[in-house]
């Protein structure tokens, strides 16, 4: 009889309950999405920042003028992206020019900011030119560049607004030592990397590009904070909305409660009836909202954090437990709190109806 009462009550008032149901479902969907986005936010953001180019440089320390190339593999073993650069002065048409030898394969992730006309990388026998250099020497793609060291075919013109603009870029051969190594590492990895390099290559200095590391850390921190505050805000409001919804649901049924009292139901019995009704409603809408939230989180994850890895990037399956716990608590409290007010009402007064 208990469940019959509960279920028929729900079914009978389904129109009205649909409002509460969707309110709660949207609330749990929102909670799931925000939870998924916020959890691990700093790691996800840092993952995205990997596209931003180098955040550290391995440079010769003390009196040495070069960095051993082995440091590249060592850094990669430490799980960071590393690309060697070797600079030399070459001659072109009788004039000196800086020739940068680059491991294009490794440098690809660190040079995403290059504006390139033509190819982004050069194979042996080919080269790229910085835009200033190209202008100065009158070079165009496809043309032969008569570098004194090794002539090459020009494959592309690079604009960066930095020193590359004045250089000729050629593929790095088998040099044993290089001028510097650019590094992209997740910020928390850097101290460990510094220690590791100091141990293996005492002649090498790991320099952090503070402008990059600190700005990124700052952005992660502040965006995280804003997102946290706003999420709390949104969830508070949504909780309030759900609470008033559930309370209203109960207050509307004063008459029914009066009738139940009149036919001899104890307060405990009435409370458990309404309680069961609320929880059934809450549980079903939480499931619906959670499912919708996961889909939304998945879609958002793919759009905002495309570089995140994993089967379901951006989705936090565990979000269910806090979300469900919260919604159920809210529903229970929202039912019980106004209930206490109703106990105090005289059945006769309620039934008289006004």
């Amino acid at each position, binding site marked *: 009889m208990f469940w019959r009462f509960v279920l028929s009550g729900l079914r009978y008032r389904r129109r009205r309950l649909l409002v509460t149901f969707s309110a709660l479902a949207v609330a749990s969907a929102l909670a799931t999405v925000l939870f998924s986005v916020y959890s691990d936010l700093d790691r996800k953001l840092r993952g995205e*920042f990997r596209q931003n180019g180098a955040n550290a440089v391995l440079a010769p320390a003390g009196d040495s003028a070069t960095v051993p190339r082995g440091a590249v593999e060592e850094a990669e073993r430490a799980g960071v992206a590393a690309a060697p650069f070797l600079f030399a002065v070459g001659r072109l048409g009788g004039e000196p020019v800086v020739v940068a030898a680059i491991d294009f394969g490794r440098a690809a992730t660190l040079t995403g900011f290059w504006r390139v006309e033509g190819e982004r990388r050069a194979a042996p026998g080919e080269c790229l030119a910085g835009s200033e250099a190209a202008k100065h020497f009158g070079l165009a793609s496809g043309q032969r560049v008569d570098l004194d060291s090794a002539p090459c075919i020009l494959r592309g013109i690079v604009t960066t*607004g930095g020193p590359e603009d004045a250089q000729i870029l050629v593929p790095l051969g088998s040099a044993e030592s290089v001028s510097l190594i650019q590094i992209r590492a997740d910020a928390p990895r850097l101290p460990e990397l510094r220690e590791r390099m100091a141990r293996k290559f005492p002649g090498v200095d790991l*320099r952090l590009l503070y402008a990059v590391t600190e700005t990124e850390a700052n952005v992660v921190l502040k965006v995280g904070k804003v997102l946290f505050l*706003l999420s709390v805000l949104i969830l508070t409001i949504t909780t309030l909305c759900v609470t008033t919804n559930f309370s209203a649901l109960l207050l509307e049924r004063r008459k029914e409660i009066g009738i139940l009292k009149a036919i001899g139901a104890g307060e405990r019995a009435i409370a458990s009836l309404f309680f069961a009704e609320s929880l059934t409603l809450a549980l079903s809408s939480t499931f619906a909202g959670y499912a919708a939230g996961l889909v939304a989180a998945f879609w958002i994850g793919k759009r905002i954090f495309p570089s995140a890895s994993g089967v379901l990037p951006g989705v936090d399956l565990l979000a269910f437990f806090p979300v469900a716990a919260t919604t159920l608590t809210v529903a229970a409290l929202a039912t019980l709190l106004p209930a206490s007010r109703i106990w105090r009402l005289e059945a006769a007064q309620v039934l008289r109806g006004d």
Partner: protein
Amino acid sequence: MFLRLVWESIRRSPRRKLMTVAAVALGSAVATAMLGVMLDVGDRVNHELRSLGANLLVMPKAASLPVEFGGISYRPVSTANYIPEDAVPKIKSIFWSLNIMGFAPSLRAHTRIGSSAVQLTAPVEGVWFRRPVESPGGIRTLAGIRNFASTWKVEGAWIDDSERNDRAAECMLGASLARRLKVASPGGTVDMYGAPFLITGTLDTGGDEDDRAFVRAEVLQRLVNRPGQMDAVQVGALTKPEDDFARRDIKKMTPVEYDRWYCTPYIRSIAHQIEEALPSTAAKPVWRVADSEGKMLGKVSGLMFLVAVAALLSAGLTVWSVMTAMVLERRPEIAIMQAIGGGAWLIAALFFFEVALEGAVGGLIGSLAGAALIDWVGRSAFDSSGGIPPLLGPMVVAVAVIVAIGGAANPIRRALSMEPARVLRGDA
């Protein structure tokens, strides 16, 4: 009678009205806060991103091709072209002058630097550290490399160059150069151009600056005999990330498009304006910085957009559910009115007026609360309160009214189209 009906309805059941108003107020507070924060956060993050360094580099147009790396120049620098030092403050008078967050001119040279232990050749820059300047438009500002130094690690003290003094024998050294010179810094001395310079401090940036020495601009101008000349200006500007429109060739734009492009703070349009202000210079975007900025801003806007959608959803939900519940609850009232001859339009007008009133009051309270929330979020996350767009308040009130009416519209329509007999019987 119309107003009396509305008024009695509000006066006699204040609790229910209060709930509706509170719901609308909550909803619009969140919406206000969200829109405010969303409009604001991008801006603030943009400010924070300025610590990435200069995103524009201004050079004389016909500068010779530099041949240098690792702090060593392999060809004497041509001094034929220069930027007049007097003209530099003009950067602050371009169309987007408010977006110029900092600029720093420098004069470049290479010289022998010696300490008691070591002698070596290194680049030396004559710079403004932090100098008060006034642009032709009358804007006063502090310019110099300290504009870009928020992330630099400085040991010792900055050179105070607020007053010109071309005899001051002070310098600052990059951390790596100081190590190679094996000098005690701060407090030690190095010899340059045949004279001892006191080291006031060292700076560590991780970049090229680490291998350089810095002196006041006027000192280096005197020493290399290039009075009033500068080789480059670094500029930090707040920009709008590049989009497809920004990448178009300005020579192929229609005049209207060109105006739009010119009046949008794209990095290239700011560069273009600087070139107009400083004739015979070339302003180049530093893509390493500009690109990172664009990408980070893109991420942040994406996130904020997401949260804004979530907030608007929850705000709409709050208002909608309360409105629906309100109308459902008052269905018998509607039926009675119909039974005694109330026309659908009149009854609907009564309810809509009431709802609009509640929406307006709620919206007003909400936008005030929302403004407080914006302030709170700004303070908590960025340590400073942000500006609130002035039109946001009225806009939110209007939106609250619309949403409230929108939320009530369907249930009212449904209630009106039901047979009054059924409602009065008490079913459905």
